[in-house]
């Protein structure tokens, strides 16, 4: 780790969506958690509030010294002892009883022995099931015949976020056999995509990468803003983040660009389960901002963004629900 390069400029603090939440949050900030705690003994006494980070990578983008703040904070989580927030315990219970972070609501399994797997992730199977159905039928309309396997478990990303590295490793082992049956994996969740690439070594494709360059048209009326997912733009690839806007614009969706379209919705990093009040407050202020811009809704490409902003009453669609093949 390269925390020693910190010049104490505060750029990370100004970039942090949690510290800048107008309701105020007891998060000690990326510098204390990502730079100071790992170097000094504070790691032993830093406490639960250190977990109030959405893992949005904004601090890392702002850092002039290239410090791997997110990785550093993630590592600290795996070393922390003490009580977990109740929501994180619930997540662990869910994993041990049925292998996914939230209870599964989806029932449209496709297990036809196709060589392509669509991996919607726990939120896509448990909460944003309309999104999952839309992406699946969009893929089919593109001639991408795929399975949606009832056997897949959580990718393990949320477990790394709550510091449960061994549980994450166990899930990876249990998923590996299933993945070996497929030639290609397509996802609609940037967090899952990142995990599959980093931890599993699978070149999973986010649906944006599948849609890029295709002849698509809009399914929408009205003016739409964007919520560019953190793990897409700052995790997977900034080019893929830009493709979200390019695909929608080329399809003829009326897109309103806003300066804060790529700031975190508050839904990442285990905040949604562990600290719903902080997560909700960040979402609420983002939703107010979108309302002031008088858009009909927001288009994103992440089930967590859909869920968290949708909870605050904003109309949120996934890119898979916004476009269709032009024929």
């Amino acid at each position, binding site marked *: 780790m*390269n925390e020693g*390069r910190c010049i104490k400029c505060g750029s990370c603090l100004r970039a942090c969506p949690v510290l800048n939440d107008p309701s105020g949050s007891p998060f000690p900030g990326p510098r204390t958690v990502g730079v100071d705690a790992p170097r000094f003994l504070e790691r032993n006494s830093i406490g639960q509030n250190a977990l109030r980070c959405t893992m949005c990578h904004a601090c890392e*983008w702002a*850092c002039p010294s*290239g410090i791997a703040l997110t990785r550093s904070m993630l590592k600290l989580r795996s070393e922390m002892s003490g009580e977990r927030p109740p929501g994180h315990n619930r997540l662990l219970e869910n994993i041990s009883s049925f292998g996914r972070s939230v209870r599964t609501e989806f029932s449209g399994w496709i297990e036809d022995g196709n060589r392509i797997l669509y991996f919607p992730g726990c939120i896509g199977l448990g909460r944003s099931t309309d999104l999952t159905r839309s992406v699946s039928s969009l893929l089919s309309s593109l001639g991408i015949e795929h399975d949606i396997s009832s056997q897949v478990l959580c990718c393990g990303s949320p477990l790394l976020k709550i510091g449960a590295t061994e549980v994450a490793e166990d899930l990876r082992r249990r998923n590996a056999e299933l993945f070996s049956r497929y030639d290609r994996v397509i996802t609609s969740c940037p967090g899952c995509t990142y995990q599959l690439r980093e931890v599993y070594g699978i070149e999973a494709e986010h649906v944006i990468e599948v849609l890029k360059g295709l002849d698509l048209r809009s399914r929408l009326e009205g003016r739409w803003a964007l919520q560019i997912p953190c793990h897409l733009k700052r*995790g*997977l690839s*900034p080019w893929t983040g830009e493709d979200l806007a390019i695909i929608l614009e080329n399809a003829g969706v009326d897109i309103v660009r806003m300066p804060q379209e790529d700031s975190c919705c508050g839904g990442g990093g285990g905040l949604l389960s562990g600290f719903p009040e902080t997560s909700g407050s960040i979402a609420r202020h983002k939703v107010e901002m979108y309302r002031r811009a008088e858009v009909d809704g927001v288009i994103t490409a992440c089930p967590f963004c859909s869920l968290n902003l949708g909870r605050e009453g904003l109309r949120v669609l996934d890119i898979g629900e916004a476009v269709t093949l032009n024929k």
Partner: protein
Amino acid sequence: MRRALVVGNGAAGTFSSWLLANNGWEVTLVGRGTPSTAMSAGCLRSQPNVCRSEIMEFLSNEMMPWTSGAREGLSKMGTPYRCWMSPPHSTWKEGETPKSVAVVGLEGHPSLLPRVTSAMLNARGIRAKPFILPRSVPSEVPPTASFPGDEAWGALAEELQKLPSEAIMLPAMASLQDYRMLDILELRSGRRVLEAITPLGAPGQRLADIMLSKAAGSGVTIWDGRKVAALDVHEYEVRGATVVGGQEVRDIAIDAIIVATGGPLVDGLALKERNISDPFGMFRVVRSNDGLRGGYDSSNGMLIANDGRSMNNAVGAGDCLSSEGRDYGSGLTEALEGAYLAVQALEGS
């Protein structure tokens, strides 16, 4: 169309990108991290000797006007500050020092310490009084950054009306989008509204925002959050670059490069024992006893390869070049002038 890669998202990188794009180049700007420009006080300390009109045009912005000439202001510690060009609320014309100042801190906002600043001003013969507005007046002030919502500004204006002084000094908290709010505060409160000269905060960020949006507006492709990992060089000519962003790696072909990275440093800034070496492993650097003066070696604007030969299409701009004559505090003006000269060197090559 000639393709240029500009490395660095600060003053030198954005200005040279803008100049090149206006001269018909296809420009890609790659930069990551907060540039020093965004950590500056957002003012030009010294008057440019070359390309003054280009600099004025580059910095002009409809959301924030500029004032220039002999200007004076107060730092967030109450110490005097002089410069040549600044946003209108940062400074006053030389000789128009306010007689009395109410120094208004906002509870929880770290960039102005009213008691310390007032004491400093009183010691200098400016009548000053500290005020601290509680966090609940406007309830929406976050501790570190911008100031959202018109209601919050309205509540602040009401509070300021109650203050007895001729001028009011506020922490630097207006983002570029919010800058006009300072005019509104001035109108509503009937007091001269001053913004404390503050590095590492809103003023520098506004400047960086103006520069980046100007470059983007002239057609420059901005690849922010990305890093040039390697250069492809043949016969003293840079022909390509490998750019990394997140987990993705892309190779691009280029006809010229401007290195404007602030310093020849492997990974960004480092204040102590600034250990300079070329991250691309291609160009010669001059080490100096004074860490702030070491940097890339150059000849007629062109960078020098490791073996001492001059490059054909690679120039350096701004603070990354070694400079014997650099004065402290002249950074932004020199960076902008250097960017202009770099573009001229490239055009002449």
